[in-house]
């Protein structure tokens, strides 16, 4: 109850005209940078910090929160329309979202993403307001062995992104795992597979890989096919808005996506990628329209988008309650707090309640603003697809290159982008799924370093993986998820023989 009173007083802070203006600037800036691949909310907040130094703390922190939420929205727009995920968390959205856009259903895809983000953001912000103090105790009790077990669950479920052939899917996954080894090994400090190229010491950037494989690869593929037959894109087929059927198929994925995104986002090493993939896999399993997956299924957009935004609110749980920054953007927001002499942590809620609750309240406002901004734009965005293909893809190439060098101005980064583009083209040409490569790059290094940390702490005793109740439960879930399809198949065969 107390939380509601505090939230109400927070709203009073957030709806002051100046703070509303800061929230608006924040969401606009955030959407703009979320759209550009490579330039994320973290970089934007970093560049704004010295400028906002003179502003009032509440206003600038509210603006940073707007940038954070806005970045999440912007990333999904380009993922859906031009298959260029602005950040790694939008990758799962690109899978089905872009297929929808290509078959003239870009409007409903953007709408379900925007509304799903709003729904998830709202529920998750409530979660932040009400559950933060309880959730954080659980989050901190997650040790390296538990993260490793969570990664095992993620590895088993991402097979949903494999397409029809497990062999091809696994091949792609292993390419990703191998790429994940490149760079300085966090535990030993030694470099692996970087061949003395200093630019490779810092590991392969996920967005460079994703943009190379998805956007550049597709541009090359379209160019190579042009002489065979020209694929006509229809920007709008059927309704521009979500039909009744679309709503019916979207609302459950929104809620399930929120249920994945918020708690995993609240884990100190959770991140936004894992819940989006878990959500994608769940929706693919649960859908009543399995035939649509691979052709543009609305569930595959609704779920991951909700998970993405809910995890953004989840990240604020450890930031506000413990002062733990668990994402690059959260780290920058922490720096923002510190420049006003505020230390997020157990005491912040008690010492500066108006600031914390003002921030939480402004998250609601930023969320509503983003919905109002984005829904009317859907019609306009979709017209992008009416651009003739050669121009559209040339534009995508310029855009992808620009984003990549803006984030990391180095020729090596561009060579990597091109090489991944060619890889993406070849994989598409020979029918290998590309999503598992990126999944491997994201999950591989995390799984490896957490396992090695767990074993270092236990002095090499592997039983540590089973002694933690969280880890044991998660490993059991992974095992069941892995075995279930085979067991069910076997039972089916057994029954068939009996008949």
């Amino acid at each position, binding site marked *: 109850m107390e939380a509601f009173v505090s939230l109400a007083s927070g709203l009073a802070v957030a709806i002051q005209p100046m703070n509303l203006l800061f929230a608006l600037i924040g969401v606009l800036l955030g959407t703009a940078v979320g759209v550009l691949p490579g330039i994320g909310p973290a970089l934007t907040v970093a560049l704004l910090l010295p400028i906002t130094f003179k502003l009032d703390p509440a206003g600038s922190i509210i603006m940073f929160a707007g940038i954070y939420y806005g970045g999440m929205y912007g990333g999904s727009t380009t993922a859906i329309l031009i298959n260029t995920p602005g950040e790694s968390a939008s990758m799962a959205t690109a899978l089905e979202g872009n297929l929808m856009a290509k078959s003239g259903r870009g409007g409903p895809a953007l709408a379900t993403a925007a509304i799903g983000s709003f729904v998830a953001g709202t529920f998750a912000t409530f979660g932040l307001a009400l559950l933060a103090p309880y959730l954080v105790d659980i989050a901190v009790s997650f040790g390296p062995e538990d993260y490793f077990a969570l990664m095992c669950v993620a590895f088993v479920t991402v097979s949903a992104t494999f397409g029809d052939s497990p062999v091809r899917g696994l091949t792609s996954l292993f390419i990703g795992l191998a790429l994940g080894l490149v760079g300085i090994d*966090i535990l030993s400090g030694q*470099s692996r597979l970087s061949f003395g190229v200093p*630019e490779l010491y810092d590991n392969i950037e996920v967005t460079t890989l994703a943009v190379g494989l998805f956007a550049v690869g597709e541009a090359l593929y379209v160019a190579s096919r042009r002489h065979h037959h020209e694929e006509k894109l229809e920007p709008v087929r059927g309704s521009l808005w979500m039909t009744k059927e679309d709503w019916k198929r979207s609302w459950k994925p929104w809620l399930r996506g929120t249920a994945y995104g918020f708690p995993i986002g609240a884990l100190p090493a959770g991140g936004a990628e894992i819940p989006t993939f878990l959500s994608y896999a769940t929706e693919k399993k649960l859908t009543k329209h399995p035939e649509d997956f691979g052709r543009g299924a609305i569930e595959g957009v609704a779920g991951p988008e909700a998970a993405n935004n809910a995890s953004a609110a989840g990240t604020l749980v*450890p930031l506000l309650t*413990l002062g733990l920054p*668990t994402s690059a953007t959260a780290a920058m927001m922490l*720096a923002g707090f510190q420049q006003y002499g505020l230390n997020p942590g157990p005491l912040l809620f008690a010492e500066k309640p108006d600031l914390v609750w003002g921030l939480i309240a402004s998250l609601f406002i930023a969320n509503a603003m983003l919905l109002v901004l984005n829904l009317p734009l859907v019609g306009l965005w979709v017209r992008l697809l009416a651009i003739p293909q050669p121009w559209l893809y040339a534009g995508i190439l310029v855009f992808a290159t620009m984003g990549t060098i803006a984030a*990391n101005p180095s020729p090596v980064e561009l060579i990597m982008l091109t090489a991944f583009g060619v890889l993406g083209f070849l994989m598409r040409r020979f029918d290998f799924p590309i999503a598992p490569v990126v999944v491997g790059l994201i999950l591989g290094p995390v799984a490896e370093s957490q396992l090695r940390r767990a074993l*270092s702490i236990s002095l090499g005793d592997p039983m540590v993986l089973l002694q933690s109740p969280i880890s044991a439960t998660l490993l059991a879930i992974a095992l069941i998820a892995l075995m279930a399809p085979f067991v069910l198949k076997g039972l089916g065969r057994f029954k068939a023989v009996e008949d």
Partner: protein
Amino acid sequence: MSQIRKSLWRGALAVAAVAGFVTSAAAQMDLKIMAPAAPGGGWDQTARSMQQALTQSGIAKGVQVANVPGAGGSIGIAQLVNNSKGDGNQLMVMGYVMVGALLTNKSPVTLEQTTPIARLTAEYEAIVVPASSPIKSVKELAEAIKADPAKVTWAGGSAGGVDHIAAALFAKAAGADPTKINYIPFSGGGEALAAILGGKVTAGISGYGEFESQIKAGKLRLLGLSSPANKATADLPSIKAQGVDLEIANWRAVVAPPGISADQKKALTDAMDKMAKSKEWQDILKAKGWEDSYMSGDAFAKVLNEEVARTKDVLTAVGLVKS
């Protein structure tokens, strides 16, 4: 597309407008400061704070900050040494972490090739344990580590960084074999802090600022700081005063490219001397909680050489650098 462009422009204009506002007119030199890291980290914040102090106090006319991220600064320093030779308006922010990174990365470019200008700030390392830990003092931790170094697990920042080096030096000072320490590197400060709060490790070691709010909230117990014994207070005890000879600071400094003339070196040093005394810089130090450890000229060059030698010894001892 026009919408994206529009909102991007709007953002760019807003940034430019505010940035233009802070630049004052009266001035002498145009400076370029390279932060050999991505925006947001400590080196970047130092570079941008210098920009703020130098322009607002009128010491410099214009200051450009450029980020050259990668490999703990190895890419930035290579660019400074190879492309900016003799450029008297160029500075690069660096710090103790770069000393170790250049050694572990086997960088072909070394700090001896640069022109040291001044040390700016320092932060002491803090050793903490969870509030529920049976270990109550530096002495007890030292005894535990002497009994079996592998059983004392440390959480801190990246391998070969200042946290790792401090942990190894602590073990050595406690009379244990530093090659046997069980140091577990975490990528961000947040992740290490979570492992310490969750009681997954024996002790945590990192800059004091990382732990400050948890210590004040009573969730972590501060055993000591790696500060000189005479700087200790009741709230901020020093490790050295408790009988373990460990003194180390994570400092940040600026260096200039090789091949600059004596006049150019003097101009840069003077500008830094003035900045360090300015009210603007002092205000920033206070706001950010950075300790002033200003030192310029030959004194700094000497300290830098000593730190390189000591770091090489430690990293060789823990096996990160093969001699």
